[in-house]
């Protein structure tokens, strides 16, 4: 958000036009952020409604049809329209050119294309609430249900297409930018962890998105054109879809995890004023290891789907092996705190919160990875609790922490620390009450995607707790939003480098002018983004 945009000598219409036709990566990043936060708000509202419905046994506020639409929208929007765009859209777009000392992205117009494809995707997704036959196929869209339902499967397919296309365009752009636009002196060994992790995430996107696009296109053809890819009565196979879907959607978890981790490293190093512990181990072992293993584990989503026993065993071992690169990332992260000088600002609190949430989320993944254990807990609330810890909440904490971290850079103003810390504290308490209890519910046998639970009526007390926790999260999110609005309206002016960071994005003005650096920085031999304590 450059100051020019809010200067008084321009009319509102002109400013709007400037933003819509912008090819500046910072504005594109901000527009990504606005879109993904809008998706987060609507999908979060769905989560609240879902929790009210599950708060007590029997129909509470709605009917199963509407409930299933809420579930569909919550899952699809949170993953496709909030997490992936906030991380690989907003953060990657805003930060990567600044971090590597570039003027802009390699292909600024392509960048605008990927932004508006994303917005088109958001609008198509929101049509869910307008059309009478809203999709009710969950974010996974498994056939044959997605083919037989009266719900609008095409809407789901088009949302995935638009978001996928947007990511592919963005991926080509980001990878090219990182490879060719680095400032003089910015060698591969001095790349920020976030840049490395974004590179890893986009390599995964480019390899795997086409598979998802193919899978949902086959779904579209089966339902509306009359092909039989997934119809066993005509020689098709229902499991083909699940294999194709998870061949993308498991790596998608790492598309989300990698930039999340990257941002947590940036925040931690900045506020701990410390060098990243064992940088090479983090990059090659952690990020590289995740990228290499990501495509070999998808069968763990199909452990109960009648796959041959031998592949369930093989993929159990490869899934457990994911703990190696992820463990190395954690060692790098915690090691960065060793002999540090930690300042507890709001972004740092989110990073610290992330460590604990991710620890719980990561370790509760192990029971799911072990096939014999998973046969009982697959598709139960345990899995829901686990992936909310490891994916939903950890990632959202990283995104919120990053927005606070970049708040002065983006707006030129400081947020209020007290409000920021309060929002963090409420959210942190809320997520633990909600998702830990959810895992207990799952261990006791309750499957996921249930509208009602007559057969598990004895779990009503636990469900009450989950619902109360969800409301605490809602209050926390509201405080976070208030703190941002407060910062925008009443924040005091920020200096160029409020966090005294050594990373390149803080070397330019706050907020950065069009073209970012005048001139492009020349980085000296002994410069390092984490060169603290020399």
């Amino acid at each position, binding site marked *: 958000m450059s100051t020019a945009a809010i200067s008084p000598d321009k009319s509102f219409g002109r400013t709007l036009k400037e933003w819509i036709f912008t090819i500046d990566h910072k504005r594109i990043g901000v527009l990504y952020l606005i879109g993904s936060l809008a998706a987060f708000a609507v999908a979060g509202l769905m989560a609240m409604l879902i929790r009210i419905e599950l708060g007590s046994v029997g129909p509470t506020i709605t009917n199963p049809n509407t409930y299933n639409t809420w579930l569909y929208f919550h899952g699809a929007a949170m993953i496709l329209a909030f997490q992936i765009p906030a991380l690989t859209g907003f953060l990657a777009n805003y930060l990567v050119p600044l971090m590597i000392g570039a003027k802009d992205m390699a292909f600024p117009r392509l960048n605008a294309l990927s932004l508006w494809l994303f917005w088109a995707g958001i609008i198509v997704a929101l049509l869910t609430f307008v059309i009478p036959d809203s999709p009710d196929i969950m974010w996974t869209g498994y056939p044959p249900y997605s083919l*037989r339902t009266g719900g609008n499967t095409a809407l789901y397919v088009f949302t995935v297409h638009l978001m996928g296309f947007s990511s592919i365009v963005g991926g080509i752009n980001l990878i090219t930018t990182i490879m060719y636009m680095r400032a003089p002196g910015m060698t591969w060994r001095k790349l920020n962890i976030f840049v490395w992790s974004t590179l890893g995430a986009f390599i995964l996107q480019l390899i795997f998105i086409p598979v998802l696009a193919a899978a949902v296109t086959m779904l579209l053809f089966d339902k509306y054109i009359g092909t039989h890819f997934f119809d066993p*009565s005509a020689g098709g196979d229902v499991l083909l879809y699940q294999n194709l879907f998870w061949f993308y959607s498991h790596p998608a978890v790492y598309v989300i995890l990698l930039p999340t981790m990257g941002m947590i490293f940036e925040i931690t190093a900045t506020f701990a004023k410390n060098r990243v512990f064992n940088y090479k181990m983090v990059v090659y072992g952690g990020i590289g290891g995740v990228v290499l293993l990501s495509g070999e584990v998808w069968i763990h989503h199909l452990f109960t789907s009648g796959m041959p*026993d031998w592949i369930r065993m093989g993929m*159990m071992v490869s899934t457990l092996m994911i703990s190696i690169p992820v463990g190395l990332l954690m060692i790098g992260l915690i090691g960065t*705190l060793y002999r540090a000088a930690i300042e507890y600002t709001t972004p740092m609190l989110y990073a610290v919160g992330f460590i604990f949430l991710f620890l719980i989320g990561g370790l509760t993944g192990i029971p799911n990875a072990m*096939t014999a254990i998973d046969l009982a807990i697959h598709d139960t609330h345990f899995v829901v609790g686990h992936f909310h810890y490891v994916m939903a909440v950890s990632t959202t904490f990283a995104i919120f922490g990053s927005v606070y971290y970049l708040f002065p850079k983006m707006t030129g103003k400081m947020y209020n620390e007290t409000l920021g810390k309060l929002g963090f504290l409420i959210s942190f308490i809320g997520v633990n009450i909600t998702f830990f209890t959810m895992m207990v519910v799952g261990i006791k046998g309750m499957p996921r995607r249930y509208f009602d639970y007559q057969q598990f009526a004895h779990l009503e007390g636990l469900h009450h707790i989950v619902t109360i926790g969800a409301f605490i999260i809602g209050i926390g999110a509201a405080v976070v939003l208030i703190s941002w609005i407060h910062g925008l309206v009443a924040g005091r002016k920020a200096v160029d480098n409020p966090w005294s960071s050594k990373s390149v994005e803080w070397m330019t003005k706050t907020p950065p002018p069009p073209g970012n650096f005048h001139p492009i920085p020349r980085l000296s031999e002994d410069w390092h983004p984490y060169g603290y304590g020399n």
Partner: protein
Amino acid sequence: MIGKFVNGAGLSLIMLATGSPAFAYKEGRSPGEIPDIPGGWQHLFHELLIDITVIGVIFAAITIYFLIKYRRRQPGQEGRPPKLSPAAAIGWAVIPAFIFMADDLYLAAESWTLFNEIRTVPENAYEVKLEGAMWSWNFKYPDGVETTNELRVPAGTPIVVRMTSRDVIHSFFIPDFKVKEDLMPGRITYVWFYPKDPGEYLITCAEYCGVIHSSMRGTIIAMQKDEFNKWIEAEKKASMEGGA
């Protein structure tokens, strides 16, 4: 200094960890004995809970210690990061990697044993056919008797259910027996369980299958063998009379 410590301590940890599968060795079962799947599951799950709690507590304790000890004491203070020698840097990557891998392989081996028991149907198991549909469980007994949403079985006999689906994917889940397997059109899957004593057990659908997915449930009624035989004879008679 760090490198030396890491080598010494790390090596012994690796030996301890990689040697640990030896402790997992179990006494063989006498032939014909039916494995106790829910018991084995509980045992493994508790073992796993200890494993992940120990790892979690170690990581969390170190983090909390660092967070308190290394807080900033005066403005402008910077960290004093340790200088890692190449050997120490490699050691900090390779040794933890080996420890994680050893734990992974240990857990995988444990899970493998139990999984094989879950997937190996005991000899002379009583076989029932199941067709899932939106939204009912339709059972078919060897002698032609059919039931819906109610599976009566003889207690003390392993039961194998061969399953398929009429329409969409469902998942046959018996929480008490810790087993679950999907039912799919065009494919036949199986699951087996062993109701030792008479009693009632819940069946519930675990794969989203449409509007009333959450109401797709049934009951397993394990009966004394002679009672079960009486029941199935009566059912056979009734269905024959009904058909005539």
